[in-house]
C-alpha cells in the first residue's frame, strides 16, 4: 500500500475482493481508487466538497456530489456490501441518523473518528481549561468542522442503541499506529477509533 493514509491502509485489510462499496465523505477518492486497483471493488464515493469531487473525477472514481446530512434515501436497502465513513462522523449534523442509514444501505459499515476520550484531550480540558487541540483534532473551537465529537464509550453507547454490533475495533494514534496497550485502554489511549459494524 503506497501513499495511502494509514487508517485507510488499515481499512483496506478489512475489505473483501470485489466488494460493492459506498464511501461517505470520500474526499479525493484515494481509498476507492486504491481499493478498485488492489481489490477490484466497485461502487461510489459521496462527497460535498467541490474540489474533492474534481479530484475524484480525475482519478476515475465514481463520485456523487451530495450532502450526507440530506440522507441516503436514493440508495436501496442492503445495496452495498460495505459502507465506509472515515473521519466524517464528527462533522455530520445527525451522526445517529447517518449510522442508521449506513446500516440500512450496507451489510457492513466501517466508521473512523477522533476519540474525544483520549487522555491528552481530557488533560487539556481538565487542567488547561480549554478546548483540546491535537494532531487528531487540529481545529480551534470556532472554526472546526467537527460539531459532534464523541468518546469511544459514547460511540459504543450509540451503536448499542441503534442495534449495531461491533465486529472489530482498532484504536490507533494520530500516526495510525496500533499498540497492545492502546487496545487494552481504548478510550484513554486511542486517538482515532476504527470500527467495523454490523446490524444485529
Amino acid at each position, binding site marked *: 500500500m503506497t501513499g495511502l493514509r494509514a487508517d485507510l491502509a488499515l481499512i483496506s485489510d478489512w475489505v473483501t475482493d470485489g466488494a*460493492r462499496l459506498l464511501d461517505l465523505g470520500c474526499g479525493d477518492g484515494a481509498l476507492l481508487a486504491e481499493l478498485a486497483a488492489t481489490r477490484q471493488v466497485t*461502487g461510489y464515493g459521496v462527497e460535498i466538497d467541490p*474540489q474533492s469531487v474534481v479530484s475524484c*473525477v*480525475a482519478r476515475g472514481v465514481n*463520485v456523487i456530489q451530495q450532502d450526507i446530512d440530506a440522507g441516503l434515501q436514493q*440508495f436501496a436497502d442492503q445495496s452495498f456490501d460495505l459502507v465506509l465513513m472515515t473521519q466524517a462522523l464528527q462533522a455530520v449534523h445527525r451522526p445517529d441518523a447517518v449510522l442508521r442509514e449506513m446500516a440500512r444501505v450496507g451489510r457492513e459499515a466501517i466508521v473512523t473518528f477522533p476519540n474525544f476520550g483520549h487522555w491528552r484531550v481530557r488533560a487539556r480540558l481538565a487542567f488547561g481549561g480549554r478546548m483540546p487541540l491535537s494532531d487528531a483534532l487540529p481545529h480551534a473551537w470556532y472554526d472546526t468542522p467537527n460539531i459532534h465529537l464523541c468518546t469511544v464509550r459514547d460511540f459504543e453507547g450509540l451503536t448499542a442503541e441503534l442495534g449495531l454490533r461491533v465486529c472489530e475495533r482498532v484504536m490507533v494514534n494520530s500516526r495510525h499506529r496500533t499498540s497492545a496497550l492502546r487496545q487494552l485502554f481504548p478510550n484513554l489511549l486511542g486517538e482515532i477509533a476504527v470500527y467495523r459494524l454490523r446490524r444485529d
Partner: protein
Amino acid sequence: MDSASVGVVTPQQFVCETGIDLACGQRLDQYTLVYETYGALNAAADNAVLICHALSGDHHAAGLRSADDSKPGWWDNAIGPGKAIDTNRWFVVCANNLGGCAGSTGPASTKPATGKPFGRDFPLVTVEDWVDSQAALAQHLGIGRWAAVVGGSLGGMQALDWAIRRPAQVQRVVIVAAAPRLSTQNIAFNEIARQAIRSDPDFHDGDYLAHNAIPRHGLKLARMLGHITYLSGDGMRNKFGRELREGKLSFNFDVEFQVESYLRYQGEAFVNRFDANTYLLMTKALDYFDPAARTGGDLAAALKPASARFFVAAFSSDWRFAPTRSREIVDALMANGQAVSYAEIESPHGHDAFLMPIEPYHQMLRDFLQTPAEARA
C-alpha cells in the same frame, strides 16, 4: 486568432441516400446533415467525440466561419487545442440536427416532391430520430464507437438516448444540465413559446415562406420567454437590476428598463438566425422525450441496457433543468450499479451556465474524457 482556437472551419455535408423512418411514422427518403469536425480521427478511429447541440444550437460548435469572423462557435470555450475537449487528442464532430435551420434538412428546405419549402409538411422529429441520423453520420465517417457523446440540455437528452439504445457505440456519456424528461412546467413554457409563434399573423399555419413572410414577432416573443428561463432570478438582478436606460421613468411602453432592452435585443438577434418551424419542432422533441415511457415509467429499467461510463453535471441556480432532475438520471444509474459521477456546480448563471467556462466544470469534463472506458460501479 486565439491559439487555442480550432481556427477557420468549413462545414461539411452528409447526404443520407437511404433516408430515415421517423418515430412519427413518416419517412424522409433522403436527408442532409451539415456538420463540422475538429481535430483528426486516429487510425483506430477510437478518439471520436460527438457533441449534441441544444434547442437553438447548430453544427458550428467551435472555431470561426471565416478569418474575419468575430464570433466563434457556441461551445468554443470548451472545444479546441488544449481545451477541455482537447482537439489535439479528440476528433470532435458536431452536426446540425435533422429539422434544424443551419443547413441540415428541415422545414425551410425544399421538399423534393413539390419543389417548395416543406413548411408545415415537415414531420415532427424526436430525439431518437436525431440519434438515428447521427448514427448514420458516424457510419459515414467510419466511427464504429464514440469515445464520448457529450450534450447539454436537449443535447444531454440525445447523449442519454445514445447510451440507452446504442450501448455498443458509446464508451462515455456526458450529460449536462439535462433531465430524463421535461417537467410539466417545462412543457408549459414550451407551449407558450409555440403559441406565440403560431398566433403570429405571419405564421400562415407554418407555410410562411410560401407567403414570403416570417413570423418574426412570435419567434421573438418565444425567444424572450425562453431566455428568461435560461437565466436565474439572481443572475438577472445582478446583471440588470432595475436600471433604467434613460435614467428616469418615461411613462410609456418604450424600452425603459435595461432588462427590456436586453430581451428585445436577444429576441431580434434570434429571429435573424433561426427558423420558426424549427423552433416549434425542437420544443416538441423536448416535450416528447421520455425514455422511461418505454419501461412503464421506470427510468432505471430504461437505463439498464446502457454500458457507458456517465458523467452528469448540473448547475446550482438552474431552475429550467434543476439539479434534482439530473439526480433522477444519476439515481437510476446507481440503482443499476452503473458507472456514474455527478457534480452539482455552483453558478449564478442558471441554465445558461452549461455554456460557460466554469473552471471545475471544464476540468471535470477534461478529466472524465480521459478516464478508462470500462464502466464498473
